[in-house]
């Protein structure tokens, strides 16, 4: 496993930013310290993982840390995928935006902001994307009911 390209690149950059690495169901997941995610994305991009595919959040309520962000990054050259994970605490969850690295993360981060209430520092246009601007609450959080009246 340590000979994997993405792990090698991240270890060469900053071994302390990588807090966990797992290989399950044929997929590599690397957990990155929350404040380092933008740099980590730039590092894996330079290592050949050049295509930002997907990004979303998972709410592990009531566990702590509550939020998990999963970034899926594909390498068009090596044809393999790496998943970067970031764990965030419940209070005022905020993380650096990766839009300076991949412009295409814009809508994905707006969606997570809209539905989970996670802020992205440095995002160029952080507004609600799916819901009306005056919507109260963050529907994809686990403490938000699936059905009912307001």
């Amino acid at each position, binding site marked *: 496993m340590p000979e994997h390209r993405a792990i090698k690149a991240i270890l060469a950059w900053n071994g302390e930013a990588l807090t966990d690495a797992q290989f399950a169901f044929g997929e590599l997941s690397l957990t990155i310290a929350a404040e380092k995610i933008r740099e980590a994305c730039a590092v894996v991009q330079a290592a050949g993982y050049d295509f930002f595919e*997907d990004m979303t959040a998972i709410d592990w309520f009531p566990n702590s840390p509550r939020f998990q962000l999963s970034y*899926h990054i594909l390498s068009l050259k090596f044809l393999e995928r790496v998943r970067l994970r970031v764990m965030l605490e419940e209070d005022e969850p905020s993380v650096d935006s990766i839009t300076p690295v*991949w412009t295409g993360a814009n*809508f994905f981060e707006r969606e997570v902001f809209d539905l989970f209430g996670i802020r992205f520092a440095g995002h160029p246009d952080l507004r609600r994307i*799916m819901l009306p*601007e005056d919507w109260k609450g963050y529907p994809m959080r686990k403490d938000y009911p699936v059905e009912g009246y307001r």
Partner: protein
Amino acid sequence: MSERPGAPVLDLPDAESVRGERHMVLNMGPQHPATHGVLRLVVEIDGEIIVSLRPEVGYLHTGIEKTCEAKFYQQVVPLTDRINYLDPLSNNLCYCLAVERLLGLEIPERAQWIRVLLTELSRLNSHLIWLGTHAMDIGALTVFLYTFREREEILRLFEAVAGQRMMTSYFRIGGLAMEPPLDLFDRIQAFIHMFPEKIDEYSNLLTGNPIFMNRLKGTGYLSAADAIAFGVTGPPLRASGVDIDLRRDMPYSGYEKFQFKVPTSTVGDNWARYEVRLVEMRESTKIIQQALDGMPGGPVKADAPKIVLPDREKMKTQMEALIHHFKIVTEGFNVPAGEVYQAIECGHGQMGYHIVSDGTAKPYRVHMRYPSFATLQALETMCKGGLIADLVAVIGSIDIVLGEIDR
């Protein structure tokens, strides 16, 4: 945002103060026939030149991802084809593949081949709608009638196989819903036999048509670097010169057994995207032909009695089958905890299902990555500096479905 309850809902830029009096802000949509659904575009124009463009989405948001969390794994399948309703079987396939990887299920070969066969038909369906509506947006109304004639035939095939014309839900976790009807392969063969001629027919109507050519050639340019930066996938990415197709490069569901070409172009304009999709339709026809020729025999469901519903016959005669049926329907089946991301190549580009399981019978989180959502971000780059009339051509050529953007 929720902190500002009194904030205005429409946050239009104040063109007068920002850019001087020459500029005008034009609101296109959400109810506009050329936006293929409910897409709203806030366009700032200088005369007829587009200065900036901002897509506003969410008018079709139904919270399908949230709904998925409240359903059993097998109950999510019918939700998926309502997302991209033009390519329903690709949705089913992507979801089923993801859950099957979590479960570690082996899918019988016949089921895999039928999946490929029907997914390619579904891709043809998607491309036919694209071609018809794209040409109609530009003013070639006739093509729409031609493509919908063939699409109708595909929908009849779907009806024969799944009982539903659009919302098929035919692929299930562990295989297919049932063995397809006896005459299905003959009917698909007849369709495939005549279909290449029909593509020639569309091509005759459009490829040499000077109006169509002038509208598409040189408009909506997207460079390969921009396409990658924005996360554009599928035909628009290949038309910009990036040669990637997950069916060939990261094969799933037995695609490695099929021979087909992946068309690319380096031009990157609307015309290149048109040509790439036309060739793609011909290649899909070849894949369908190979699937028909080499269709293996055997079961269409995996041998996993606790996950796959038993046949009716077995359920009525064997006690265990009846118990399994009862347990699956009432309690669902537990899926091992974990996280998978399964991507496939659908008609519009790369579709991805990200499923997180916590070990229970309901998915903890289902996230869908749909190609149009990412592709829409590139719209401003493609239209900036161009004429406002070309905007309609560009929207048509990137082939968006609002159902999959808003989910």
